[in-house]
């Protein structure tokens, strides 16, 4: 079942579960010490001197026979896990979603923040050739190819690739279309992997600069990689890593329990509860980061009236939603994205249910006996549950919510412009990226239809501000506004749950999905 051609030639394959995966993510950030429950650091996460050797088998939900190892097509969690084993990005996200240097050793901008010089570290691809500025530009140009639709293309949009140049072997000068103070986030963008200029077939002989080198790949079944001894960040402890695909959660758990795999990704809260502390397997909770929300379309009735939006903020009983829709595996939200991330406005008071005030606001807005349709779908865990819980909560405030369940394969597209109220979720990304993708006039996925010139101007101001604390102040102003009258009712952040066998060590627990340390196997070992 090997593939005969470069899949990218034909068309990017993002698979169905892709969206579940990629952005959906998860994560954790064990920010506030994670109050109660398990320790921050699970047993599996710490302890002992790393031991070299062994093969770790990791089970992920996958994409079936259409899977590819082309890192620029990465979409599912499984794709990303494989991509980060084989490849590197210039930067990647730390636990607070700030960009950390990876293949880039350092970066520095000019005064106006629209020209960035990135210096590469000394690293080699698996065939021994050095990673050069040319490879970087080649990779970014491939992603930005107008004939393709690679996922990272939108993230790289600020870069003027025609004007950007290699300055020597290890220095790239990026020319930007406008000032971008958060340019390092672009380097860490989802899917922005560096492939060699001489890259061949990605599925037969992928060559990267990552911690593992290719051994074999059968789409939809298994991928085996071996330690790359010359990895710039230190050779992995494991001899080999095998990624196997098991789409059913029960199958992943069973395989883990029976010792067929040592690592199972994406488990249910109920499974976690059943096995936590029982000694058979270790449960790792990556806390607080799959954002869970209801989206109100702010450009149409009834949500074009900000009093109605505030009333909805006050209708939500967040504790009940977390307990019901997430089976308790999560934490309440405060209508702001990115709890615990860099620039998060944590000084704003936690919102709680206040039905009297909600009723009063609705009355002021002339929206008593309000009827709204809430779009939901089985596209993400907890969506339909959240919808019916919220329907009951709204009924107490005199609002009738009609829950409409849509197709999961086209859900995200259906709710982008259609309807007035919908279930929504998002994986980890920097707060700046959340704003630029979803909350600006020209944002491509503006599901709350939030379009305000003054808000756009604030974003531009932040991106043009060199000083970090001044920038933080601008982000706080923006978040304050969203908190008061935004369209995202963000009620919670779900845990992301992994299971590992008892002999696995070194699994980082403070690592939201999509960040560097999540699904990272070069620092893991078998005791």
């Amino acid at each position, binding site marked *: *079942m090997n*593939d*005969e*051609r470069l*899949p990218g*030639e*034909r*068309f*990017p*394959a*993002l*698979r*169905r579960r*892709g*969206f*579940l995966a*990629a*952005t*959906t993510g998860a994560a954790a950030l064990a920010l506030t010490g994670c109050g109660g429950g398990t320790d921050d650091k699970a047993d599996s996460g710490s302890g002992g001197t790393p031991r070299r050797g062994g093969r770790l*088998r990791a089970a992920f939900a996958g*994409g*079936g*026979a*259409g*899977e590819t190892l082309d890192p620029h097509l990465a979409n599912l969690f499984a794709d990303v896990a494989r991509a980060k084993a084989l490849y590197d990005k210039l930067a990647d996200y730390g636990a607070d979603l700030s960009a950390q240097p990876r293949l880039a050793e350092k970066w520095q901008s000019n005064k106006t923040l629209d020209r960035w010089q990135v210096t590469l570290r000394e690293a080699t691809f698996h065939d021994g050739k050095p990673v050069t500025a040319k490879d970087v530009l080649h990779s970014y140009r491939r992603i930005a190819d107008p*004939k*393709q*639709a690679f*996922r990272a*293309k*939108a993230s790289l949009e600020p870069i003027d690739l025609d004007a950007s140049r290699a300055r020597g072997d290890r220095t790239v000068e990026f020319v930007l279309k406008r000032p971008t103070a958060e340019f390092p986030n672009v380097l860490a963008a989802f899917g922005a992997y560096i492939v060699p200029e001489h890259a061949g077939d990605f599925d037969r002989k992928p060559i990267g600069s990552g911690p593992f080198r290719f051994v074999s790949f*059968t*789409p*939809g*079944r*298994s991928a085996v990689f071996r330690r790359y001894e010359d990895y710039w960040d230190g050779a992995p402890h494991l001899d080999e890593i*095998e990624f*196997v*695909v*098991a*789409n*059913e959660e*029960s*199958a992943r758990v*069973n*395989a883990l329990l*029976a010792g*067929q*795999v040592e690592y199972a990704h994406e488990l249910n809260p109920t499974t976690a509860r059943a096995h936590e502390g029982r000694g058979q397997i270790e449960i790792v909770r990556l806390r607080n980061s799959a954002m869970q929300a209801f989206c109100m379309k702010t450009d149409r009735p009834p949500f074009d009236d900000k009093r109605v939006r505030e009333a909805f903020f006050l209708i939500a009983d967040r504790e009940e939603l977390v307990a019901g829709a997430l089976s308790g595996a999560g934490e309440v939200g405060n209508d702001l994205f990115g709890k615990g991330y860099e620039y998060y406005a944590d000084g704003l008071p936690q919102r709680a249910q206040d039905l009297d005030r909600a009723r009063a606001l609705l009355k002021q807005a002339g929206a008593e006996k309000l009827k709204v349709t809430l779009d939901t779908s089985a596209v993400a865990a907890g969506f339909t549950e959240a919808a019916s819980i919220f329907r009951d909560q709204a009924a107490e405030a005199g609002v009738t919510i009609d829950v409409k369940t*849509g*197709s999961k*394969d*086209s859900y*995200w*597209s*259906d709710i*982008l412009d259609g309807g007035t109220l919908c279930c929504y979720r*998002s994986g980890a990304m920097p707060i700046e990226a959340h704003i630029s993708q979803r909350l600006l006039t020209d944002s*491509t*996925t503006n599901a709350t239809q939030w379009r305000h010139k003054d808000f756009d101007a604030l974003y531009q101001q932040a991106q043009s501000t060199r000083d970090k604390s001044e920038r933080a102040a601008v982000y706080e102003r923006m978040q304050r506004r969203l908190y008061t009258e935004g369209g995202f009712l963000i009620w919670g952040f779900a845990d992301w749950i992994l299971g590992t066998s008892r002999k696995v060590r070194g699994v980082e627990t403070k690592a939201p999905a999509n960040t560097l340390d999540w699904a990272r196997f070069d620092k893991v070992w078998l005791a």
Partner: protein
Amino acid sequence: MKTAPRGTSSGGPGGLRSFVARRLTLGLVQTAAVVLLVFALTEALPGDAAVALAGDQPDPARIASIREAMDLDRPAHERLADWAAGLPRGDFGTSLTSGRPVAEYIAGGFGPSLLLAALTLALLVPLGFGLGVLAARHEGRLIDRLVSSVTLAVYAVPEFALGVLLVSVFALKLAWLPPTAVGYGTDLIGHPAVLVLPVLVLLARPVCSLSRLVRAGMVDALASPYAAHARRYGVPGARVHYAHALPNALAPAAQQLARTIDWLLCGVIVVEALFVIPGLGTVLLNAVAERDVPVVQGLAVVFGVLTVVLNLAADVVAYRLTPRAGVAA
């Protein structure tokens, strides 16, 4: 597509030949109809491959460019015609999402499906017939009642529940067998232990239905005047049982077997998912979710042809065994 009508015939080998020819023509028409229907239904699903592909990044510009790259912006009938044009050459087209040949998808999923089907069948036939004959020979007595009630009870358990039960007991509790085929995707035959539980689950219901059919057919025949007549002539019991009564049960059993093989080959999604066996059912499920129309159509052709051929074979067997049935049909 599941119910090809029983053939008519006028007896004799020539009759059989024209019967087969007519059935094959009809089968071709049926398969074409199935493919058309599947195409229409897939087109009618909300969202297309571009939307499914874009997932939670439904940027309209991106969807438009994906659509263009996939040629989805061309009219549906043109895409169908293009795809159909490749069929006579054995070209099933290429997947929309990965650009790989559809034939590769089918070949990849067919191996595991065929292996499971063959193993299941190899055990199903002796077990099903054995139990049926056993019950019929002891009609009304303890063994019959035991066999009948157990088969009825097992039949009532959904595969999914049975699978979970078997895994918890034999794989997790007793640790006798592996719970999934994870990691052995390409080499199932080399690790027979992983096949035991899936085959047991697959066997459970067909064994019950087959043995009940065999029993009913035999009991019917044994109560018939011709069996009574044979006995009066002093034909030995065994001969009455196996030469007279059993063939009477074979015709419906053959039909039932054909349906079971069809079911096994066309993807048994529950078992595949539970035990992580990447067969045709998994391929189909993924393809529908991705709106990967060429793959769905390719599978529709394969499933259609399989169904037609298997039903035809069953009818021929039935025709051979009980020529009288043909007259009635």
